[in-house]
């Protein structure tokens, strides 16, 4: 990436360098573990906080922007991926992380997930899945199980849950992983792999809401997670990945599910004209004067 006008920065960052405001989540909330893994991954990858943007939607999980010390964009509910699309395309040199809840990403924003996956947008999308709406105090979520009882579903959720992993795989995501907030080490590795991967990476992370979801607790997940590595799963095998995300044995695959290579959106033909210079850092005054002849030629096509 040509990134000429920017100052060089230091390297060798530590976990603490990615700490910002102290989180205001409920004590014991799964999101602490996810934040910790993000900070660990950022330190181990030595991400530059000045060239990294964390984009979030609205939810308890979306508040993570304020706790993670990089540039941040806390947009509106369900629209983190579109905002991230604009950010990544306008400045492909930036490392773009996206984070949010299951409601944000798989409910109100589900349409954008499918499109980001098919575009192979080069961002790392971490979804903190607690199978409920935490911020609005415990309503049913698109990942809640059928029959899940909440104040808005007093007789149990009538809907089958959204299977975001299967959808993303079919739509064209090139990196899929399942993490658990109770296993920070593995989650850190998944996030690191996702950031290194050039393309759309979804890391769906089981992150219990200790306040509003008394069903899907840490131990509930622990009982159901299966270690994909131990199972001998090959993440380059698409059919095997499809099998994992459509498991019918009630178990939750844990680890890297799928990974493949495909050119990301910002390298696609017709996007950015194949140029390396970013719209975000272009000296428009210079372009206006240096390419005045081209601009006038375009104008005179109307003559």
């Amino acid at each position, binding site marked *: 990436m040509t990134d000429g006008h920017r100052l060089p920065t230091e390297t060798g960052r530590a976990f603490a360098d990615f700490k910002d405001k102290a989180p205001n989540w409920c004590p014991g909330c799964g999101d602490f573990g996810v934040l910790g893994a993000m900070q660990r991954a950022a330190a181990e990858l030595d991400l530059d906080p000045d060239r990294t943007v964390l984009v979030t939607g609205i939810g308890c999980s979306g508040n993570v922007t304020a706790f993670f010390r990089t540039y941040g964009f*806390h947009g*509106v509910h369900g629209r983190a991926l579109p905002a991230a699309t*604009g950010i990544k395309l306008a400045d492909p040199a930036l490392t773009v992380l996206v984070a949010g809840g299951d409601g944000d990403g798989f409910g109100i924003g589900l*349409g954008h997930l499918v499109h980001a996956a098919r575009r192979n947008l080069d961002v790392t999308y971490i979804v903190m899945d607690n199978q409920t709406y935490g911020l609005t105090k415990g309503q049913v979520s698109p990942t809640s199980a059928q029959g899940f009882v909440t104040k808005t579903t007093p007789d149990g959720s009538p809907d089958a849950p959204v299977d975001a992993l299967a959808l993303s795989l079919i739509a064209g995501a090139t990196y899929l992983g399942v993490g658990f907030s109770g296993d920070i080490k593995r989650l850190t590795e998944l996030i690191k792999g996702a950031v290194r991967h050039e393309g759309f990476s979804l890391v769906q992370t089981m992150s219990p809401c200790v306040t509003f979801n008394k069903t899907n607790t840490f131990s509930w997940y622990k009982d159901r997670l299966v270690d994909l590595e131990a199972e001998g799963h090959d993440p380059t095998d698409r059919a095997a990945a499809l099998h994992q995300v459509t498991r019918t044995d009630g178990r939750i695959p844990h680890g890297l599910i799928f990974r493949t290579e495909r050119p990301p959106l910002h390298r696609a033909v017709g996007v950015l004209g194949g140029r390396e210079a970013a719209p*975000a850092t*272009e000296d428009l*005054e210079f372009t206006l004067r240096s390419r005045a002849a081209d601009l006038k030629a375009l104008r005179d096509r*109307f003559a």
Partner: protein
Amino acid sequence: MGRFEASPVSVRRTVHERSSGVRIPAPDERGGSSSWRIGGLAGEGIDTAGDLLAKAHVRAGRHVWVTRHFPSRIRGGLTTCTVRVAGHPVAAPSGVVDVLVALHADGADPVKQSLRPGGILLYDESAVTPPDGPTDHEWVALDATGMAKALGEPRARNTIMLGASARILGLDMTVLEDVVVERFGKKRDEGRLSEVAEKNLAALKEGFDGVADVSPPPRPLPPETPRQGDLFLSANEAFAYGALVAGCRFYAGYPITPATTIMEYLAATLPRFGGVCLQVEDEIAAANMAIGAGFTGARAMTATSGPGLSLMAEAMGLAGSTETPVVIVDCMRPGPSTGMPTKTGQEDLSFLLHGGHGEVPHVVLAVEDLASAFTTAIDAFNLAEHYQCAVYVALDLALSMGKGDTPPFDVDGVVLDRGKRFARVGATEGAGAPETGEGYARYRETADAIPLRAVPGDVGGRHYANSTEHDERGYTTEVPATRVAMVDRRNRKLGDIDTLHQGLIFEGDKDAPLGIIAFGSPVPVIREALALARPQGVAGELCVMRRLLPLPRAELDAFFDRHERVLVVEGNSTAQLLSHLRAHCPEAHRAESLLKYDGDPFRVDEVLAAVMRPSEVTA
């Protein structure tokens, strides 16, 4: 008063109350112009024929305005294209046709097509049967279908009719031949004509030879005053071109009539300037993407029409809260809901003025003709970055889809205002240690209330852009004093906009009793009406609103003060512009209102009638 009650204005008049049915304006209401119309089915080259004729007129130094009329479906309906030609700049149809060309029976109804009595109806005899007995019009037959077949180019019926029209109108064939060759192209090997071009030239000649001279011509063509390099385009194209010149490098959009041609133009040009143009899943995504791009420092925009604007409503506030520059264009068509997708109107004004839920300042600009489409694009991006806010630009279908001529845009004269940028000011004025960013606060109070803008990549400018209410560093807060300070600062941001941007353009006679206020496509119509009123002893001053928000208060107050009678002309049923003026200008209560909301653009005769006939209370 409910929002959708008609505004309690002293005089409310709609054009509909007088003109039920089709009214043919008298020749003296048409400003010496003449109109040619071609009608046929979609896919029969209707638009191409109109564009070619119009371009030939422009080359010859005349002024044109081209309007298309088509149903909201692609197959089967009648499509028409009307070329109005005049000796003075025009940007509106005249409402009457002198020469009608019918490729299909549906287009051969002289009354429905507003053909004037005595007008010429040129028709393809294989498609149209003329009426038995006497008619008010001169029917001229041509076997366009047969000729096209003989030429081995069945699609050339439109060009044949064009050739015949040239003869009937008394048009110089060489100019027409030139534009046909340009359109259909030369072969690669030096200047040899492509086969299509050859066939179309032959078609032109067949048509020309197939009809007799009309003497005198149906209406004399306006005199030729050749000008150098005049452009022929739509306001959408002019705006999109202006956006490119202004340095727009990111566009995301979703197709919708009449905004799509903006995206089409940028899709063809942006990548050549290292920019991005994407058709995305919906308008919610489009607006959020544009804001994301704006956050990084790129100049970004999206364009839509009413239904898409409704979907963007939440993003409107996001731009305001995060103080991110973005340009959002609304090519208006009548609502509510899907409304009339291929008709024009100015019904979104109130929505644009409010701009989403909550309160945050933004700018609303309007385009009234081709020249202002270009300059407004430049202004929109400059104001968005200067004030770090959303700028909405109102166009309407009549301008978005109409095409006309305009002098070449002044690229060299364009000035860019990138606003207050942290990287430009440097780490020192940003204060504090660059590598920690501790001294910098993105939303900190400043003398002019406009904060110092850093973008990702600026070392030391690290911050948090937040849709939730926040403190000066972007952290979420609900502390009442902080909230109040944030709202107050944002509300002050646009305070000096009158010194930076000319929001009103005044034209005509400052001393006349009559003043007219309008924005958008009615403006050129009013210009013509005032020009026609003058010889009849009625003068007036026109106030063109290029900025609707923040309202240029002082100048508007002075305008009301100097005119005894003020007429506000707008394309909706509830007098939204007048309501807006009344909310801010004490003298606006005595203004009269002229409204139109049937989906068609204002006509000169309609405005002229309101100008000439003083107040008659009808509401």
